[in-house]
C-alpha cells in the first residue's frame, strides 16, 4: 500500500480490460460497418445495376459533399458543439465562385477567394462561440440565415451555369478508369488528416476532453477557446471547399445550393456513432455512416422506391442507431457478466469493493 519508488511493489496494469475483438466489434462503429457491408452485399446481389461501376461513380459523386463536411462536423460535435451553418457556407462559396468566374476570374482564383470566405465565416462562428461564449446552436442558426441571406442577396434568383469545361469536367472525372471520382482523392487526404488530428494528436485529445468535461479540460491546461475556434475554422473552410466542388459538379452557382445539407451531414455523423452530447465517436464510424446512407438511398432508388420512402427508412435507421447504444451496452454488460461468473471473478471486481487488502 505504500507509495514508494520501489519498483517491485508497484502494480503493473494491462492496457485494456477487454480483448481486442470485443473492443473492435462490440462498438457502434463496428455495428455500422457491419451493417454497411451487409447492405452493400444485399444490393449487389438483389438490386439490378447496383453492382455496376457507373452506380458507384454516381453514388460517390453524390455523397462527396456530405463526406467532406462530415469530417470537421465530427470534431465539432465531439467537442460538444454543433455547426448548423455549413450548408449556407456551401451556398455562399458556390455563389462566390460563380460570380467571380462570371466576371472573368479563373477558377483557381475564385476557389481561393471562396476558401478564404469560408474561413471568415468559420472565424465569425468560432469567435462568437469560443471567445464570446454564446451557445453554438443559437449562433449557427443565426449564421445559417446570415450566410444564406448573403448568398441569395448577391446572386438573386439567377443561376450562373457556364464554367470552364476543364474544371467542370475535373469535378466529375474518375481516376483512370477505376470509376472512383477524382474528388475522392481530396476526401482521402482530408480524411487521413482529420483522423490524425482527432485520434493521434494532443489537439484531438483536447477535443474529447472539452466534449466530456469543459471545466476539467480547462483545469488540465487544454486551450479550450483556441481549440473551439480552430474547429469552426476547419468547418468553415471544408464547407467552402465542398461548395466549390458542388458548383463545378453541377455547373451551377445558385444562392440556394445545398439547402438543408447540414441536417443530412449531422444525421450521418450521429448514425456513425458520435454522441450529440459530445466526447464520444470515431471518424471511421462517421465515414461508414455517410456511406451507409448513400448506399441505402442509391439502392432503393434503383429499385424504384420513392424519395419519401427512402427518407422514412433513413429516419428510422437513425432512431434505431441512437437506441442501439444502450442495447449494445446491455449486450456487452451481459456478456461480461457471463464471462466473469465462469472464471476469475475476484480479479475483475473493481478495487475498493471487497478486496481492500490486496
Amino acid at each position, binding site marked *: 500500500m505504500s507509495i514508494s519508488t520501489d519498483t517491485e511493489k508497484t502494480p503493473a496494469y494491462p492496457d*485494456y480490460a477487454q480483448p481486442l475483438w470485443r473492443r473492435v466489434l462490440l462498438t457502434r462503429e463496428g455495428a455500422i460497418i457491419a451493417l454497411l457491408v451487409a447492405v452493400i452485399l444485399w444490393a449487389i446481389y438483389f438490386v439490378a445495376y447496383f453492382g455496376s461501376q457507373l452506380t458507384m461513380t454516381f453514388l460517390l459523386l453524390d455523397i462527396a459533399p456530405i463526406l467532406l463536411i462530415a469530417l470537421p462536423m465530427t470534431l465539432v460535435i465531439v467537442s460538444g458543439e454543433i455547426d448548423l451553418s455549413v450548408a449556407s457556407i456551401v451556398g455562399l462559396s458556390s455563389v462566390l465562385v460563380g460570380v467571380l468566374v462570371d466576371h472573368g476570374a479563373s477558377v483557381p482564383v475564385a476557389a481561393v477567394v471562396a476558401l478564404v470566405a469560408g474561413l471568415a465565416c468559420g472565424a465569425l462562428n468560432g469567435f462568437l462561440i469560443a471567445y464570446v461564449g454564446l451557445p453554438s446552436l443559437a449562433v449557427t442558426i443565426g449564421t445559417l440565415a446570415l450566410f444564406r441571406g448573403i448568398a441569395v442577396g448577391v446572386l438573386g434568383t439567377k443561376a450562373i451555369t457556364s464554367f470552364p469545361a476543364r474544371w467542370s469536367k475535373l469535378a466529375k472525372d474518375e481516376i483512370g478508369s477505376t470509376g472512383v471520382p477524382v474528388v475522392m482523392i481530396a476526401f482521402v487526404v482530408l480524411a487521413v488528416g482529420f483522423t490524425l488530428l482527432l485520434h493521434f494528436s494532443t489537439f484531438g485529445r483536447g477535443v474529447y476532453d472539452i466534449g466530456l468535461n469543459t471545466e476539467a479540460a480547462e483545469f488540465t491546461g487544454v486551450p479550450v477557446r483556441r481549440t473551439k475556434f480552430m474547429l469552426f475554422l476547419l468547418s468553415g473552410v471544408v464547407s467552402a471547399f465542398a461548395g466549390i466542388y458542388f458548383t463545378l459538379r453541377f455547373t451551377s452557382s445558385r444562392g440556394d445550393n445545398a439547402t438543408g445539407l447540414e441536417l443530412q451531414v449531422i444525421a450521418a455523423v450521429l448514425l456513425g456513432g458520435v454522441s450529440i452530447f459530445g466526447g464520444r465517436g470515431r471518424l471511421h464510424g462517421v465515414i461508414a455512416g455517410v456511406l451507409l446512407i448513400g448506399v441505402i438511398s442509391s439502392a432503393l432508388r434503383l429499385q424504384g422506391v420513392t424519395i419519401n420512402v427512402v427518407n422514412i427508412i433513413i429516419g428510422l435507421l437513425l432512431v434505431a442507431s441512437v437506441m442501439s447504444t444502450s442495447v449494445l451496452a446491455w449486450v456487452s454488460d451481459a456478456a461480461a457478466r457471463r464471462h466473469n461468473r465462469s472464471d476469475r471473478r475476484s480479479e475483475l471486481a473493481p478495487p*475498493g469493493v471487497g478486496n481492500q487488502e490486496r
Partner: protein
Amino acid sequence: MTAADGSAPALELRDVAKSFGAVRALSAGSLRVRHGSIHALVGENGAGKSTLVKVVAGVHRRESGDLLLDGESVDFTSTAESKAAGVAVIYQEPTLFPDLSVTENIFMGRQLLGAGRRIDRAAMYAEAERLFTGLGVTIDPRRPALGLSIADQQIIEIAKAISLEARVLIMDEPTAALSGVEVERLFTVARRLRDEGRALVFISHRFDEVFALCDEVTVMRDGAYVDTLPVAETDVDQIVALMVGREVGDLFPKTPAEVGAPVLEVTGLTSAGVFHDVSFQVRAGEIVGLAGLVGAGRSEIARAVFGVDGYQTGEVTLNGTAIPKRNPRAAIRAGMAFIPEDRRRQGLVIDASVSRNVAGVIRSRLARAGLLTQHAENHASGPWAGRLSVKTNALDANAATMSGGNQQKVVIAKWLATEPKLLIIDEPTRGIDVGTKAEVHRLLSELAGQGMAIMMISSELPEVLGMADRVLVVREGNLTADITRADATPENVMLAATRGREVSA
C-alpha cells in the same frame, strides 16, 4: 407517532447481501437501530454503507438476509414503498426543485387540498411553519428553494420526512458540505428528533461528529458487518482499527524536510470582493496549509494563483519568473500543478479512461512528430498509476467507475507526472477513506522531502495542523495569521479564522 415498542428495534438488518454483476457490494450487512437513538454507521469508502442505505431506501433489492421495521419483515421494491413505511433518507446534496417555494418542495406530489380540490396554500404554509417550529429553525416557507444553503436544503428534506411521519431517518454524510455553525444546528435538530422517539442513522467520515452526536456506532468493512459499540465505551483508535482491519499507523506521517529557497511568491493579490492584498511565500520542501472557514476565499486564492480565475492587482512568481494571470497553461509550463477541490467536475475528465486522465497534462510531451498514440499514453501513465497504487483492472477503465480515493490518486498521478515544482492541493482528502487518507498524507510528506513546494488547502483542522510546516489563515478574503508548525494549535487557528466575526446561528 405510535409508542415505541421497547423490545423490537426500529430498524434491523440481518446478513443482507447485494451484488452488482460480479461485484459483491454487500455480503453480510447487519444493523440494529433502537427507537430514540442516533446510530452512527462508519466504514471506509466501498465498505458497503451506501449500498446498505439504498437497500433500506428501496433503491436496491436485497438478494438475501432480513430487513425488519419495528420487528416486522418488509421488502421494498421502490422508494415510494419505503417512504410509505416511514423510512426517509437525507442525502449529502438534497435534490429540491429550485424554482418552487420551500413549502411546495415539502409537499411535492401530495399537496394539501381545500374546497373543490384546489391546492390550499394557506394550510400548507401553516403546516410548514409548524414543522420548522418543531425543528427549532427559522426558514421562510414562502421563499423559493433557489439560493438556499445546503444546510437549509437538508433541513427542508428533514421537514419533508417528518411530515411523512418518518420513523427512521437515515442521513448519508450530511455534514460534508456544512460549516461548523450549520453542523451544530443539524445536530440540535437531530437530537430533538431522537428525543421524539425516532430512530436516526448517521453516516459520516468525521469521527469528532460521531462522538459528539451518536449513541451507538456500527462499523462495516468490505461489505460486511464488523461490530457495534456504544459510543461512550470506545475511542477513535479502536473504530479506525475496526474499519481498516489493520493498524493505520500515523494518520499524519509528517517528516521534517529541508526548507529551501522560495518557490512561489505571491504579492498583493487582490480580486474585488473575493480576496484582498494577499501576500505569501511557499518555499521548496515546505508544506503551507491554508486554513479558514468554508467561503473565506482560500480556494479562490489558489484558483487565481494557478490562473483559472483572474485578479485585479498583484503578482505571482514561480522561481522568480512572473506568471501571467488567467493562463493555466503558462502556470503549468512554469511548473505549477493544481489539484482542485471538486474531483468529479474539475480534477478529472470523469468519463475518460485512467490512462487518458493520467497522461492528460503531459501528452504534448508524449507526441512524436506531432503524433500521439494510445500506446504512448499507456506507456507513460502506467508507471504513475502504479506509483500511487491506483486500484484498477486496466488502464482503459473509465474513471467514473472508481471510488473517490482512487479517483483522487488518479488526479495526483496526473499532476505528479508533470514533475511540478509547486503543488497546490485543495482539500486533498475530502470524501476519501481513512486508509487512502494516510497514503495521501504520506505522499505529500515524501514529496516535500524531495524538495517540492506544497500549498495545501483544507477544512479539516487536524489535517492542517498535522501536515503543514506553516499555517496561513484566511478570513473573509484576508490573510489574518501566519503560524509556524510549532506554534499552531486548534485554538489560535480557529481564532484567526473567526476573530471579529459574530459567531451566531
